[in-house]
């Protein structure tokens, strides 16, 4: 416990960096897949649009992680949309499989 108390600040920052970079990337990818699956009418165009917009999702996710007060809320704001999108893509859209 000593270790955690001593480096509490550093651990919190590292966790946020990890959440923003990895979590944000996963969320960006899931959003892109979701956009592509919503724009079914034109498969190729949907993928293109999804990939293009994914960078905006990624940017917003990163800014969000560093702007909220508690690390718990930061984690929630990334992980919850990830889980929801994943479940939706898995169960409703059927584009992802386990």
């Amino acid at each position, binding site marked *: 416990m000593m270790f955690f108390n001593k480096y509490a600040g550093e651990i919190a920052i590292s966790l946020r960096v990890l959440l923003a970079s990895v979590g944000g990337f996963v969320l960006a990818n899931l959003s*892109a*897949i979701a956009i592509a699956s919503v724009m079914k009418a034109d498969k*190729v*165009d949907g*993928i293109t*649009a*999804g990939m293009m917009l994914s960078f905006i999702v990624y940017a917003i996710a990163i800014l969000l992680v*560093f*702007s909220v007060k508690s690390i718990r809320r930061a984690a929630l704001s990334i992980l919850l949309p990830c889980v929801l999108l994943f479940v939706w893509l898995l169960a409703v859209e059927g584009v992802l499989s386990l």
Partner: protein
Amino acid sequence: MKPRFRQSMNWLHTWSGFIFAWLLYFIFITGSAGYFENEIDRWMQPERVVVQKPMDDADILAMGTRQLSQSADDASQWYISFPSSRDPYIGISWLQPADASKGTVRQWLDRHLHPDSGDIISARQTSGGETLYRLHYTLYYMPLQLGYILTSAAAMLMLIALISGVIIHKKIFLEFFTFRTGKGLRSWLDIHNIFSVLPLPFHLMITYSGLMLLMTVTMATVIDVTYGEGEQKHRQFYTAAQAEITTEQVISMSAAQLSPEAALTDAKARYASQPVSYVGILARGTENQQIEVWFASQRSIEFASMLSYREQDGQVVMSLSEGKAGAAARVYDVLEHLHEGLFADIYLRWLYFICGLLGAGMIATGAIMWLKKRLAKGQHSASCALRRLASINAGMILGIPVAIACYFASNRLLPFDMAFRAEWELHCLFIGLLLSIGLAVCSAAQSVWRNLCWLAAVMFGWLPLLNALTTEHNLLVSLIQADWLMLGFDLCMLVFSAAFVLLAIRLSKTTAATLSGDNVTRPL
């Protein structure tokens, strides 16, 4: 806005900007140089012969096809390029087939022709402007994929730094008009703001479109989900994404008449006012032989428009491309064209270049401030590592221009017939960078910037001299021959050199002032 929110955005701005600052600076400098890719090519291949008097397009086509049938009869694709203001030469290129018996590999080759004789000009091997501009996303000395991913990561952090930078400004426009000289860190911040705010639309556009240009690498999972993994399967997506709307019509030309000459005449009649840039002969010698006539279009940001001719059921069908099929693909196209700026005329091209340099300046001043703040905190007890970092930073910021000057100089100094000449030019670029960093680390802290400025001034200043000594081209000859590209390049090098001289003199004065006790600006 809550103060805590601004504080966290400030932290994010500082670190997202600093982590990849050197890489971003390298990307911005080489990318900016890329806007003058063709002009750099002219200087790096001085053997090319400029077409001085106007030539008939049909004569150029005949000259090109004659030379191609001699040197590349087994190639399936031929292109003949026509002189333009940026490329005032006659060029041919062909897709060389792989042939084990001759030891050739499948690759595109290109040569230039002498406008009087039509013979192939023997020119030095060079990496040229193309490889220099490709450096800004391939990064060299590493697998392509890794280069793309590192570039994209840097661009993503740049995007974050730009957005958080806008957020932390209380009064963005007021601060833009504020400039306080001789106030140390405050002055650096003012310069940083000017470099960032004035070309902010450019910075946002170039960063976002840059991310987008590499999205098929970084966001490949999205393609995997629909098309499956692997290059083979992704190719299906690329082909489909590049689909264009084409209008086809049967024209009054008999199939027997269809030849490159006839296609050129027909196309020129349709677009009388636009200059022809290329004629291509594809799938040569097969039933599907196709002739393409490309026009340099200046109407919008579309770089070119193309007419294609082929035989179908005894008739000649002409097709005209009307842009990409999908809506998102069209947006992608617009952003791609904005990023590459191929449509830009000479004035807009300079604006692109200057915006790119302002971006590089923004990154450099940001990195300098990061270091200054931390050095100032420790004052005389600043850690050794931090000081070393400050020296390396100076070596990077001025070393990258020096490295590019080395690249140009190596083009003149390496032996004409050297093996791997083009590769060695690039090795020279990175050797130049390493030597600059070495010089920076060895210099005393107060003279490091000044020394590097003098080095850069010399390296750029002697390029026109080197050109005059090693080739038949010099400022006077270029002026007399109206060889504007060669003259423009030499003059630009002198301007860069002069800029570094002025900077060096200014830095000497500041250093002198600091040493005499007037400690207003503390040098790094």
